[in-house]
């Protein structure tokens, strides 16, 4: 099955921003968030998009 335009993971430092629905990764700092995002981007073969300073999503295109 091919996924198109699907959010694979959400990475955030602000728990209030995200409830649930997909893989959510809470991080303590911006550095941690960036390294987790970089890793997930490679693992999931998606593109890391920045929605705000404290919220990244990984999307399969």
């Amino acid at each position, binding site marked *: 099955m091919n996924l198109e335009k699907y959010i694979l993971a959400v990475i955030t430092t602000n728990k209030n921003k995200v409830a649930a629905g997909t893989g959510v990764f809470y991080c303590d700092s911006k550095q941690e968030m960036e390294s987790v995002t*970089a890793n997930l981007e*490679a693992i999931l073969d998606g*593109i890391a*998009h*920045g*929605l705000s300073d404290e919220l990244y999503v990984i999307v399969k*295109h």
Partner: protein
Amino acid sequence: MTEFTLPIAFGIFTGTFSRLLMLRTDYRQYPTYLHGKIIHVALGFIASGLGAVFGPAIIQEEFTAITFLTVAASQFREVRNMERNTLTELDNYELVTRGKTYIEGIAIAFESRNYLVILTALVSTLAYLLFNVWIGIIVAIASMILSHYLMSGGKLKEIVDIEYVEPRFDGAGLYVDNIYIMNIGLPERQKEVLRYGMGFILKPKSFNARATIANLGQRQAILHDVSTALGVYRDSGTPALVPLAKRDLDDGRVGVFVLPQDRDIEKAIKVIGDVPTLENAIRMSTEKVGMKNES
């Protein structure tokens, strides 16, 4: 040996020779070296054989020979299918895909070149039979020149102005001039994109050109050609590093974002200018009645 042997041999020779002239392996690396070429030279030989026997058949009043040409037509439609299937299969393994429109354009070219071979063989045999070998040679050369003229299509630089623009980030958004390309989140990735990325603005020269470069297949062809000629900073598993072309909805300009390994602006502009305008992407909006003066 009959009176027709020499003219037919002459026709087959000129036909095959004209196929060789039209068979050029360039930066696109298609047809591939040697084996791919042999297939097309062999098919060109068959095509010229079909064209060459047509003249003698008409002179012998064997008019049913025309049904031969229908065989040729279905034979070469098959060539087009073959090319399309091969290229579509291979396209999955390209770092930057050719796109279906480009593939269809290549497939059409292969089919039509075989018809040009038939034409060359037919007219040169006929000229040999009706006049003499010298007239035959002149006619053969003329039809080869005609074939050469018919097979070369337009280039992108004829319909657009190309300008280099440094890509930039506005927040997470990547822009070429004022055209939004994509959202890249990671600062690390953004640095990479700025280091290797190049932006170009294609400004259409006419209303027709605007519709032509809006075609997604045409834009993919640009990205593919640039990536082939200048290399591409990309691998599987790095979907963020993807060349893209997006359109300014207001005035129809297209922003091209590429990641070449050879960052030579002059060369890149030349490569983009030499991208063929794909037959299937060309639009003639102004040909519509009453639209002539609005472009």
